[in-house]
């Protein structure tokens, strides 16, 4: 935890891509343990970049990112070690195609956390069971449906026992009938008290599971609040317009 009781804190984070593209324009955000922060906003608003700066997959051009008492933007920080505490799930799954479901999970357990073969296997199987895919342990990603692949990806991230989970539009690449199985896993995770930051277009999920809703536009947090209240009566004109389009 950070000194202010938050798990993650972004302080005045700016991000430029090159000289012209100004994607994040001063983001301040603190996420406390067990919060489920849902980030919504129009495409190109900087949602994904914001999420990816949290584990420094995108390095902020300016500003600080603090995670669990460590300044990730400090050059002396061991980023690889810090990243093991932050799970990230991608829109395109990004499973390793040359590894089985089990192998996808054990790879980092063995090589990053240094678990023994047996420990890694045990933990991976347990994690697959939790996402309901125990029987797919030996299947390669190419043999799994999109929803199953995404659940393996979630299991892979969870197996590292992270304190924070980041979800980057994880259902956007899925066929409609496969969305629910992934959202169910995420909802259960939230119920177990996992701290989560979720970029999504699933407004139902935002309303039911989110503890806080963040509306981002043009690289700035336009409005934030309790999801049901914000959906019912958005306080800002731009939020109102966006919600009118997606609901």
């Amino acid at each position, binding site marked *: 935890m950070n000194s202010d009781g938050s798990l993650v804190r972004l302080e005045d984070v700016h991000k430029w891509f090159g000289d012209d593209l100004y994607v994040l324009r001063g983001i301040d955000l603190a996420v406390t343990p067990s919060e489920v922060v849902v980030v919504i906003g129009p495409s190109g608003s900087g949602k994904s970049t914001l999420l990816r700066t949290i*584990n420094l*997959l995108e390095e902020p051009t300016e500003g600080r990112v603090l995670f669990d008492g460590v300044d990730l933007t400090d050059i002396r920080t061991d980023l*690889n*070690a810090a*990243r*093991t505490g*932050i*799970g*990230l799930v*991608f829109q*395109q799954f*990004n*499973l*390793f*195609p*040359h590894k089985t479901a089990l192998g996808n999970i054990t*790879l*980092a357990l063995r*090589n*990053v*956390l240094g678990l023994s073969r047996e420990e890694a296997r045990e933990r991976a199987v347990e994690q697959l069971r939790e996402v309901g895919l125990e029987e797919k342990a030996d299947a*390669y*990603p*190419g*043999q799994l449906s999109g929803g199953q692949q995404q659940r393996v*990806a979630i299991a*892979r*991230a969870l197996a*590292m026992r992270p304190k924070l989970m980041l979800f980057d539009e994880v259902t956007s690449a899925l066929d409609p009938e496969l969305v629910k199985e992934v959202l169910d896993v995420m909802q259960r995770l939230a119920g177990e008290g996992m701290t989560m930051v979720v970029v999504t277009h699933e407004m139902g999920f935002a309303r039911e599971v989110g503890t806080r809703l963040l509306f981002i536009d043009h690289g700035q947090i336009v409005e934030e609040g309790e999801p049901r209240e914000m959906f019912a009566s958005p306080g800002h004109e731009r939020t109102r317009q966006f919600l009118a389009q997606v609901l």
Partner: protein
Amino acid sequence: MSVGEGAAAAGDPLPDEPRRPPDRGLRHTAGEQTPLSSLALAAGAGGLVLVFAGSAAVATAYGWTPTESLAEAITSPAQLVVLLTSIGLGALAGIAGLLGARRAMTKGAREGAISGAALGLQAIVLAGFLLWFRNGDVERFARQFFDFALLSDFTDRFLRAAGNTVVLALSGEAIGIALGLVFAVFALSSRRVVRAPARAYINFFRGTPLLWQLSFFFFGIVLGLQLDVGVYTVAILVFGLNAGAYSAEIFRAGIQSIERGQFEAARSLGMSYLMALRLVILPQAIRRVIPPLTNEFVILIKDTSLVVVLGLTLSQQELLSTARDIYAQTFNATPFLAAAAGYLAITLPMIRVVTWLERRLRSGLTGIGA
């Protein structure tokens, strides 16, 4: 007659099994042929077979050895009849094929007519070449290149030479792959000071002739500086450096072809740059670069012949230098044919193995390029 009918007649318990797509080969279209297309097929195939079988029969009648009888066979009237008949059959196949293809009512008939015309054309080209060949000084040529009896004295040397070719190519390629991997990673570095020397190495060894490199490193550096390094060692090192430059480019392209998300997923799991490269990127990239890497290896096998310029001792000689050496002793060029056969004996199995490996890697459940 289709595959599906045969299966049904045999009482196939799985009637829903998808039928094999229709085979356009000669066998399965036999039932659909028209008289014209059948004529084209028969004449074309007959002409082509006649070129080979007829010539072989004539040569056998005259005897393959000694060389003089082979030359006699080639210049004999019988051979002339064989070739002219082949050309006639080929022309007949061509005409019947063109007419038949236009009038074909079914796909099978058209395939048959076109195949017949193609076979006929091949017969004409081959027979035409042999016809032209007969006009030269066949006896002299046969003495120069077909003195197979002479080769039997040099079997041991050729076997050792083939071994040396394999050793030179394999060691060169092994060094090349190791260098290539390292320099590919350097060439992909975001740091200019790491990238620049890698590019310089790659560009130099890709941009200068291998022959120049061999000469310079041996005559220039080793002899010039009076270093105590053997010619064989220098050759292997230069082959390695040269193959390394090409392999580096191949590996670089392979690594760059892996989706960025793979690297990001690995890093977000806490892997270091090198760990992500070793465990996630390279295993996928290497599968993709097997075809171009093999291509490179086959080129290297042939390029080992360039060591002839360095002057090797007897025990170091590879295929081409052996052939040249024996030619210098005997003034007979047949060893060059033996050298060519040696190269093919090494490269063809290589190509087969890699084609098989490639197919296995792709069809396997490893989901490459998912």
